[in-house]
């Protein structure tokens, strides 16, 4: 029998922003580990190739410290990945068991053991300096890899806090701030330097960094919100998910007025989208005591969000309506949103990616709401290229790179969402590791 970590009851958790999933106790973790046959097929599903059977084997023997060190060879952010990776599509999808081993929960269990990690200081050995732009998972991972190999590493971040989407996007009830802080503290101890409040392209230019550093990794993510471009979109009460989430996660607006940034509240909230961002925005709104509905244009089975999070959302009383596409926002005289006009969609067979294809019908419905949140995707912003020449982007704003993760500009590499478009934490980390390896090979000498 699979052992699943417990969640806090939904009636309780919607009253706060504390973590939902309670994690394993020692006994539970060992019991879950014991189910594992250690066949190793799961490794292929892991973008950073953690030696999963080896660490599970150590859990069986209660060698938690050893187990964690096995993970940390390939992943410095186990506390984060154990919580937010879509394991169900990765390692756990490969598992031979009918009920896959809870690999993610075990990873998190180890990270939470807080066995004092003595990674130690890594002195700069090769007199080579690398600048990393962006402190999301891609930036942090490449910083780790390069520092480990003896480079001097400086990370530049535009915001006042480190962590990228982990900090401003993913809410605390899924990924508490302390977890991010701890993992970053680790890097600081290793000797990685961080410069917050530096927007490259404005505060310093890329070309200036190139004068001072031997190489650069661009890990600026995909932070530019896409929006519907429908009439009424700038009415009061209409938000792009990034604003809603940033106010809550980065600025702590749910603690207003103790924290000074306010959040706009309403009785009814409608969220558009089907990804993690939509689910997160909806669950945040629920915690602000609103009635929340998610409207998605395809079917629930097509939603790109993690299944676990969709289930959590439903438990928390969030309604999911499908086959609806917003066409127009209607506001009142005072500029506040009144209702949204949706066109009903219908399925017309399958797309190449296996999801249902949908087309509009002639039927419309109006849904009244006080708040409307658009979570329909993000693309990279191009501020980094301002006042510098030579970087090339594709039509979706993604940075063009070659097979070595190098951009069209010499000595400039890139990794994460800025090259792949909005993807996942672990994918960003995998690419960052690859970029670091190429840098070590090319200029590590």
């Amino acid at each position, binding site marked *: 029998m699979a052992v699943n970590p417990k969640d806090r009851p939904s009636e309780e958790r919607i009253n706060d922003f504390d973590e939902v999933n309670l994690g394993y106790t020692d006994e539970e973790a060992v019991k879950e580990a014991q189910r594992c046959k250690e066949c190793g097929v799961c490794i292929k599903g892991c973008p950073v190739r953690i030696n999963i059977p080896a660490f599970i084997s150590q859990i069986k023997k209660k060698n938690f410290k050893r187990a964690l060190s096995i993970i940390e060879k390939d992943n410095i952010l186990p506390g984060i990945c154990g919580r937010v990776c879509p394991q169900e599509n990765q390692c756990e999808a490969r598992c031979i068991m009918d009920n896959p081993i809870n690999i993610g929960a075990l990873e998190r269990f180890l990270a939470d053991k807080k066995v004092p990690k003595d990674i130690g200081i890594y002195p700069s050995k090769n007199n080579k300096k690398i600048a990393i732009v962006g402190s999301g998972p891609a930036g942090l991972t490449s910083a780790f890899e390069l520092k480990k190999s003896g480079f001097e590493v400086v990370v530049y971040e*535009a*915001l*006042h806090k480190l962590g990228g989407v982990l900090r*401003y996007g993913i809410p605390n009830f899924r990924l508490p701030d302390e977890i991010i802080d701890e993992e970053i503290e680790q890097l600081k101890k290793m000797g990685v330097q961080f410069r*917050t*409040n*530096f*927007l490259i392209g*404005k*505060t*310093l*230019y890329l070309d200036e960094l190139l004068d001072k550093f031997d190489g650069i990794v661009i890990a600026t993510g995909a*932070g*530019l*919100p896409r*929006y519907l*471009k429908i009439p009424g*979109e*700038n009415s*009061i009460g209409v*938000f*792009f998910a*990034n*604003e809603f989430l*940033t*106010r809550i996660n980065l*600025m*702590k607006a749910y*603690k*207003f*007025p*103790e*924290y*000074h*940034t*306010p959040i*706009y509240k309403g009785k009814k909230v409608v969220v558009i989208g089907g990804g993690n961002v939509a689910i997160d925005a909806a669950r945040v709104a629920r915690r602000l005591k609103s009635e929340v509905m998610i409207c998605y244009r395809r079917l629930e089975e097509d939603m790109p969000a993690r299944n676990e999070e969709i289930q959590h959302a439903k438990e928390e009383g969030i309604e999911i309506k499908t086959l609806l596409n917003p066409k127009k926002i209607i506001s009142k005289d*005072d*500029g506040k949103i009144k209702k949204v006009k949706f066109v009903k969609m219908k399925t017309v067979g399958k797309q190449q990616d296996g999801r249902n294809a949908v087309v509009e019908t002639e039927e419309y419905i109006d849904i009244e709401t006080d708040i409307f949140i658009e979570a329909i995707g993000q693309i990279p*912003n191009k*501020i980094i290229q301002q006042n510098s020449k030579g970087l090339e982007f594709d039509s979706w704003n993604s940075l063009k790179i070659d097979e070595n993760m190098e951009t069209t500009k010499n000595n400039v590499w890139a990794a994460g969402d800025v090259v792949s478009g909005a993807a996942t934490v672990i994918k960003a980390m995998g690419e960052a590791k690859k970029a670091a390896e190429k840098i070590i090979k090319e200029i590590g000498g």
Partner: protein
Amino acid sequence: MRNQIVKKEKIASKTYSFWIYHPEIVSHYKPGQFIILRVTEKGERIPLTIVEVDREKEIFRIIFQVVGKSTRLLSKIDENEMILDILGPLGNEVRINKDVANILFVGGGIGIAPLFSKIKEFLKEKKLKGSVILGARSSENLILENEILEITRNIYITTDDGSKGKKGFVTDALRDLLNTNEDIDLVISAGPVKMMKKTVEIAKKNKIDILVSLNTLMIDGTGMCGGCRIEYDNKTRFTCVDGPVFDGYKVNFQQLIKRNNQYHSHECKIKNLEDNL
């Protein structure tokens, strides 16, 4: 040290001027740009215009009016102390057409601060011809008059109560000047949104181009959140990365006014809490 206030001055009622040390912001500054700062660990991120820079001393100047919680906390920081977080320079350089020869600047209230960066750029650095209308509620609210007088003698002042200059509004002076002066080919306006809206209407009537320096709500200032968006030429634009200076004809002011009041009740709440302390 970076972020240190090297000079602090109270220059008018509830209005402060800070010179802040920050080599990178100063060396990358272009007129029209702004910063976003945060005063305490629990504080908001608030945008303020870079009024001018001293490239030698590597310091830049902000001028702000205490209107709420964050600006009040900012005003309490002493000379030689540090500001927690400063990000900048943000936004774009203010650009004008090559054939512009004579500019009329209009500033109302604290809007004179952002206006000054443009006056300095075009009248002092680029040596274009121009004149300036400054307006304030009353003489003790009027800022930067002397600094502007050093650049140009063509100043017109209005106050709501008539305590200085002509009694009335900047918009009255603007209407008069545009009617009598044929040479003006561009107006640059900064101030309360309602004032800018009015100046645009007047400029439009006189078929003269007008640039406005917008002050929307903002959070990140990097194009990430969309909170600063405006409707511009019937399309959505982000003030922080597409502005903050825009062609006044194309801005939907009606909507901007409403959007800027989004959090009005919250701000009142903070104020009430404080008043009760």
